[in-house]
């Protein structure tokens, strides 16, 4: 068993990967809203707990035009025969009838139990009214919507924000480590020694929601860009006799990519797009 990576990361690796993401994001797509690293400041005079990660990633003020199919039809009818209609609703859909604007914040937080990052989101209307589960669900890509309805309590649920202690929405983290251990396994070396393993990777790709919607998941050539460290991890598991300092160095390099890679499927799941430029090699 020893040597096979289980797809999890430590709190320190989480922080390193988060800071890496912030840096890459800023340099590769400066025109987009930036991910920032927020250091957790405990409530006044309270002690900080020693073991937990001390910060989290934040992306805020993401505006989404939400399609309001049913509402829109009703409004159209009203528009024909009733001049005095709801002004507030009209204001919410400037220029685009049938759409209303929702503003989202996304936080990426380390989960101590599952030892993986977890995405939290919260949205509100332009007037500040918070979005409920069904609103948030409606804003998800179609396949995520379907999963949400099939697995009402195990996919996207209202959870307490671990730092803010307020109700947010979160994607359940229990499948993250198994997906990550597959994504980070080298497809080539796996194909050579175990073809069934490779099939599992294929399956995971098909299963990942929205990968078709945005070109997010590393395509084969993008994977090859990231190939060297991926090869290293299989080297880590198969050749434990290599010097531990060497292993450690490459583990650190690889783990820095963790959040970026994970976001490549976690973000599309919640309808957030990631530009492919962040996957370009930075040097």
């Amino acid at each position, binding site marked *: 068993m020893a040597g096979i990576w289980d797809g999890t990361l430590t709190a320190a690796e989480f922080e390193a990967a988060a800071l890496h993401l912030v840096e890459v994001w800023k340099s590769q797509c400066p025109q987009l809203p930036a991910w920032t690293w927020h250091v957790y400041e405990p409530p006044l005079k309270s*002690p900080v707990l*020693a073991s937990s990660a001390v910060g989290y990633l934040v992306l805020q003020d993401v505006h989404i035009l939400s399609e309001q199919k049913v509402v829109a039809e009703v409004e159209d009818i009203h528009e024909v025969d009733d001049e005095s209609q709801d002004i507030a609703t009209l204001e919410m859909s400037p220029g685009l009838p049938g759409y209303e604007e929702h503003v989202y914040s996304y936080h990426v937080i380390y989960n*101590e139990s599952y030892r993986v990052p977890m995405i939290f989101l919260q949205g509100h209307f332009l007037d500040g009214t918070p979005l409920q589960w069904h609103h948030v669900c409606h804003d998800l890509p179609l396949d995520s919507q379907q999963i949400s309805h099939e697995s009402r309590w195990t996919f996207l*649920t209202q959870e307490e924000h671990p730092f803010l202690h307020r*109700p947010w929405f979160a994607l359940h983290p229990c499948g993250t480590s198994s997906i990550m251990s597959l994504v980070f396994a080298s497809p080539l070396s796996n194909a050579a020694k175990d073809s069934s393993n490779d099939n599992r990777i294929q399956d995971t790709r098909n299963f990942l929601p929205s990968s078709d919607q945005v070109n997010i998941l590393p395509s084969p050539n993008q994977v090859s860009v990231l190939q060297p460290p991926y090869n290293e991890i299989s080297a880590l598991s198969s050749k434990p006799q290599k010097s531990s300092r060497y292993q450690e160095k490459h583990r650190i390099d690889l783990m820095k990519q963790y959040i970026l890679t994970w976001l490549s499927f976690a973000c599309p799941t919640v309808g957030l797009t990631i530009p492919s430029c962040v996957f370009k090699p930075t040097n």
Partner: protein
Amino acid sequence: MTVQARRHVWMGAIPLHLHLHSSEVTSLPAPPPFLILAPRNGYLPLLVDAIRPHFNSALPPGSDTIWFDYQGLPLKWNIPTGVLFDLLCAEPERPWNLTVHFRSYPAGVLSLCEDEAVKWNFINALKEAFYVMYGNTKSIMNMSQSDQVELWHCVMKGDLEGYDRLAARVKPAFGFGANVGRGFGHPPSVAETAITNPVTRAGKPGRIPMRMYLRMVDQDLNDLFDVRPVSSWDDVVYVTCPIDVPKRQGTTLTLRDALMKVVPHLFSSSPTISNEVTSEAPSVMRASSNAVHNEFNGIVRVQGIEPSLDLPLDWVARNLCGPEHFVHLSVICTLVAPSLPPGAAD
């Protein structure tokens, strides 16, 4: 002994003295307060069927969502009732005076408590605990829907025997029913193999699922009678902090060791001193030398008990955990007076 400890934990209950919030009273006279025994390991909204009929006729028209507050603080329904009591009632008050509301749900502070939210909060916590212990959630995922529902009914009814029966049936089996055989002459290996899991050797949990709730008070811990109540959840720090179980044979981790890992600053002398001195010594010795030198500046409560910090963490986890297998530690500590710069007092 062990069986008894678990049975006591499962039977633990808190008498509640409930009155309806004045803004929701539409009858004259106002309905009298309602007394009810709330299971420690239960969740407040589960009491709704017992409470609602008592206040029903006094309520204004509209739809209901039950919630509770203690001295103005809305109570988080996803935290077990006993934990709320241990944490928020610094000086235990019996019955516990709570205000019940059926309107104006504080959705900004509390998660919505709709349909099956309480049940799924429990199942998801159980899954999380299993991931912490064994690195996977097979036991829970392999449970049939009907078994999950039955398990939940056992939790709601406080039926420990039913719970253990179901837990033993699942593959890999869980629950501590099998483990208690140890004290009764059964070979330990049988009990151990019942929870054997390929991920961890010998079926021992790799980590212990723990949640810690930390509250600071500004007065002497020996006199908590008129301590200032918690007015906002921002004043409480609470985190999930799994504790690694040492792999080496013969190493016993105590509750004190766990606290030392999570809140080292609450010990009166720095743990690093003794680590330096005995860095070559086996960790058992290191742990015991810490126990001698460091005093914990706080009150720790688990299931209403203030346990000795020298209890093995493993024992605490098996006997004092909730039905979702988490150990909930409520810690009340005093504010450490900040050293003021010269002249600041004026």
